[in-house]
């Protein structure tokens, strides 16, 4: 396969003037661990204000891609350009590694989202109470402010983490399988929030497994199987042919793989 030219995910055709710079640009990016690539030679632009689902089989590199976009791992090769400053990127990891035995209330967990505004030492006080209450209301957790986080159900915890994302007020939001093990009502509520972010002009990238949900709620899709299979409008990307190609991708890294010689 030839290295494809940069493919672009854009919310709407640009009218007339200059196209705005991408929120994220992957320029021949290879990501991986111990030199074994998890994502291979990726060329990709994510347009500002787009709402994109990342789809692919297990081991396709979805989480790796999001971590790299968040700046948590370095590319083995290539360059990632971010159109937004690092402090305006919010990243919600898959099943957040949260110590829920820690004696913390829901209110305090959500208030962490004010970090960018209050920093290490700034006071979080009455001044911020209305914003925190509004975020809790938006995710439907009003009344549970004083609950310890250990007493929340899986769905309630994920709602609280979305409330924290709301307060982070990020321009680029990266969600790694945010709907795992949640019931339909929770998924519907949180999807509505994601749409609200899109309407506010934020760029959202979410790794997802549920293709029905992607077809119904995500206008753009990026199909990944360690290589970029396709990206663009969801109905164009999620064809049987593309999905079959993604499934054929082998999962295990070859322990004897030779150094990659593909042209950069």
């Amino acid at each position, binding site marked *: 396969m030839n290295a494809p030219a940069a493919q672009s995910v854009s919310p709407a055709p640009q009218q007339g003037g200059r196209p705005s710079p991408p929120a994220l640009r992957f320029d021949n990016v290879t990501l991986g661990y111990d030199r074994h690539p998890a994502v291979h030679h990726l060329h990709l632009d994510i347009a500002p204000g787009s709402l994109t689902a990342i789809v692919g089989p297990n081991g396709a590199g979805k989480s790796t891609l999001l971590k790299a976009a*968040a700046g*948590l791992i370095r590319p083995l090769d290539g360059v990632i350009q971010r159109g937004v400053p690092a*402090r305006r*990127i*919010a*990243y919600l*990891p898959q099943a*957040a*590694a*949260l*110590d829920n035995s*820690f*004696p*913390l*209330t829901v209110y*305090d*967990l959500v208030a*962490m989202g004010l*970090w*960018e505004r209050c*920093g*290490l*030492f700034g006071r979080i006080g009455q001044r911020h109470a209305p914003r925190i209450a509004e975020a809790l209301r938006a995710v439907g957790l009003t009344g549970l402010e004083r609950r*310890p*986080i250990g007493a929340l159900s899986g769905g309630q915890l994920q709602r609280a983490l979305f409330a*924290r994302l709301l307060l*982070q007020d990020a321009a680029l939001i990266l969600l790694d399988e945010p709907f795992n093990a949640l019931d339909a009502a929770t998924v519907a509520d949180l999807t509505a929030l994601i749409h609200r972010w899109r309407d506010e002009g934020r760029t959202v990238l979410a790794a997802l497994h549920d293709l029905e949900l992607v077809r119904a709620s995500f206008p753009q899709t990026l199909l990944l199987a360690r290589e970029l299979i396709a990206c663009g409008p969801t109905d164009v990307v999620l064809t049987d042919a593309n999905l079959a190609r993604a499934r054929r991708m082998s999962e295990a890294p070859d322990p004897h793989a030779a150094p990659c010689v593909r042209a950069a």
Partner: protein
Amino acid sequence: MHAIYAWLIGPFVEFDFLRRALVGALALSLSGAPVGVFLMLRRMSLTGDAMAHAILPGAAIGYLLYGLSLPAMTFGGLAAGFVVALLAGAVARLTQLREDASMAAFYLLSLALGVTIVSLRGSNVDLLHVLFGSVLALDDATLILLGAVAVITLFSLAALWRPLVVECVDPGFLRSVSRAGAPTHLIFLVLLVLNLVAGFHALGTLLAVGVIVLPAVSARFWARQVTGMAGVAIIVAALSGWLGLALSYHHGLPAGPAIILVAGGIYVLSLLLGRVGGLVWRALPGRHLEA
């Protein structure tokens, strides 16, 4: 009434050395107990124990060179504590050994080295002093040291409270919003070593960690939030110091172990009766609520 006064307050009014011991114990409670709360929440309680042994050779070298000198033993202890903490961290990062395993290796080495060094020159009395401290013989300089450590610890904890809490709950989140994680961990280890060295003068290397860890694990049974836990831990530590000293005075017990024994007693009581998850309340749960 008179009996209570005679038992709990009288000795401290009468004897200067007991008052000094009490002031030292209170200063240790103020700083050590909140550090212990974070040790517990970070699942590092046993690390505290290991670090307590690790400071021994440094203090022993100070002792070997300058005798029972406060500054020499303090600086020696601080240096040894930092070296072991940094080495254990570095080994954990560079090899496949986990931090707890490499910490265990270094502290055992440290402890053996320390006891050897003390024995080279001193008598068994000196060894006992280093291992178990001398809370009944605190001079001005030692009290100032304990007070200074308490002030430094409280101000540092106040400043670092947020990153400490966030790093315990959700380290991934802290990494994504700030680079404060690694420095916070390091400063916390420094505070731990400071408190161990301060506690070492009063209670010795073996028991210093007792006033740090026991009040914290007791507090877990009384408070639901971190702030409350730190408050309860301070009260438990202060009570242990006071009751322990009184007990040691009236019954001729060694003072340091008496303080730790009282703290241990409070822990057992908390474990049984604590309002937050104590065993008795678990055995007799009330009827469940409607919602």
